[in-house]
């Protein structure tokens, strides 16, 4: 066992530094020598197919999962910084648990401290500000278990954010959100890494919203990680190889769209249609979209 964990980074400039992480779970090699350095304020997207080891890597970076070998240097908690903030992919919450959104967020600030909390005005203000930052102030008094998945996600993000972490590890934080809420969260994260220099490592299956803000993409396949700029990774050929299924990247009007192409089924249907029907459906589709544009 060569694993060791240091709580402070000696790589200059990096807030997180992982070296040669190997993880074997139930005899299966999940991560096979992963290196990762993240600088303050950097926005890193972690992608890969289901089972590629994204969650395993995040848990190793957080320190709840001890790698079989390798080292992780992560920011430690002290008076100034909350260390690492973490948002897991699935959080099972009891519907009747007597905890309001603001109780959950306050636990993110002082959940590790002994004694019964006597929250002063300053603490309550900080809880309110953090809830406001994730647009959750309107349901601050609600029970956490009675909220929708998207509301819970925002409250849990506030829980992870309130301690002013130097690094945020977010596992599918956009999965339960409608497009508008997801956009708000991405905008908030982008603002935080600029104003507070928070480093962000985020996994997401739908990377369209993240494309404008990501500095770097780390993709996991076969237990190894490959790092590249979004331009280098978000390409039809690279993503198709990574996921082992056809994926199409469309660039138009300065925007990038990633689409999982359903093995070209619409094209085949199109080809089987008589020419005039196909032409008619195509033109009606066009007029429909131009109508939507107006």
């Amino acid at each position, binding site marked *: 066992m060569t694993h060791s964990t240091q709580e402070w980074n000696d790589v200059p400039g990096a807030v997180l530094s992982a070296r040669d992480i190997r993880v074997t779970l139930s005899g299966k090699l999940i991560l096979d020598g992963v290196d990762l350095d993240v600088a303050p304020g950097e926005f890193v997207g972690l992608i890969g197919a289901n089972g590629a080891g994204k969650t395993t890597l995040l848990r190793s970076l957080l320190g709840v999962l001890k790698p079989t070998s390798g080292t992780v240097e992560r920011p430690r908690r002290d008076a100034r910084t909350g*260390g690492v903030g973490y948002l897991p992919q699935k959080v099972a919450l009891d519907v009747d648990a007597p905890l309001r959104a603001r109780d959950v967020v306050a636990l993110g600030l002082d959940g590790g401290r002994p004694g*019964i909390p006597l929250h002063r005005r300053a603490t309550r203000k900080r809880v309110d500000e953090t809830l406001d930052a994730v647009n959750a102030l309107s349901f601050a008094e609600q029970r956490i278990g009675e909220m929708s998945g998207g509301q819970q996600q925002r409250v849990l993000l506030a829980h992870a954010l309130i301690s002013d972490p130097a690094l945020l590890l977010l596992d599918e934080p956009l999965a339960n959100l409608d497009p508008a809420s997801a956009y708000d969260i991405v905008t908030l994260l982008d603002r935080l890494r600029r104003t507070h220099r928070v480093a962000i490592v985020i996994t997401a299956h739908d990377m369209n919203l993240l494309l404008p803000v990501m500095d770097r993409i780390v993709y996991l396949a076969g237990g190894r990680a490959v790092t590249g700029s979004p331009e280098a990774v978000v390409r039809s050929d690279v993503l198709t190889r990574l996921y082992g299924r056809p994926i199409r990247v469309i660039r138009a009007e300065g925007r990038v769209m990633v689409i999982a192409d359903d093995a070209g089924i619409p094209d085949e249907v199109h080809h089987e249609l008589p020419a005039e029907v196909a032409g008619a459906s195509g033109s009606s589709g066009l007029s429909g979209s131009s109508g939507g544009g107006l």
Partner: protein
Amino acid sequence: MFEDFMVNAWEAGTIVAIIAGVVGFFVVLRGNSFLAHAVPHGAFAGAAGAVLIGVDPLIGLGVFAAGGALTISVLGRRARSDVITALSLAMMLGLGSFFLSRSSEYSAEVFSLLFGQILGVSSVQIVPMIVLGAVCLAAVGLLYRPLLIASVLPEMAPSRGVNPQIITVVFGFILACATTMSVPIVGALLMFALLVGPPAAARFVTRRPVTAIPLSVLLALVTIWASIALAYVSDWPVGFFVTAISALIYVAGRGVSALRRRVPASRNTARVEAEAVAA
């Protein structure tokens, strides 16, 4: 109802209710009702063993309660914890029946460990109760926030420096401590009822943890006081009243919760309808 021998009953009942209300809040929050069943009932076997070899039953209770809680929390870590709890409980009860079979003349004393003997509490028994109860309260007070975060958000607790696995073991000991002090007074069955019924009812009424704990204590107090009074008047066993009132309070709590959920919804509907009419 307030004669000398009854004073002890009121005192003992009050102490047990306070501890059960506080510890029970975390039992229910953590989904540990089965553990709260296993530890008191398993501990009864320890008391039976202690009676057999002529040791203070309190020591047997303490050893089995702590041993059972430790076994379940450590073994349950890497396997289905309900399976481990069930097997531990069955094994301890089996040991208990073995001990009982060897010491038939003391079976009345052991019987009271299951169903309680609150009306026969002596003032000598009150002192260890107060000590163990104070230890329980101090531990919960000290670990209040780590217990909350480890119980509700076990996956996020490590980033706040709380190891949920350690909390699981520590809470097992707190539960063992609460069991040891209360089983000689109210019995294993009643302790189980008090640890689950009143705290579960309190959750329906309030959504704040700092209010839910005192409310849980209050409901436990009401349960045990009413049970003692009813048992005195009717001459029926206290255990019957404690379990019945615990269950009734839980049902009442659910009723409150159902009303609470319906009222705001109908208000919203009314407002939306009014807005629609106005528009």
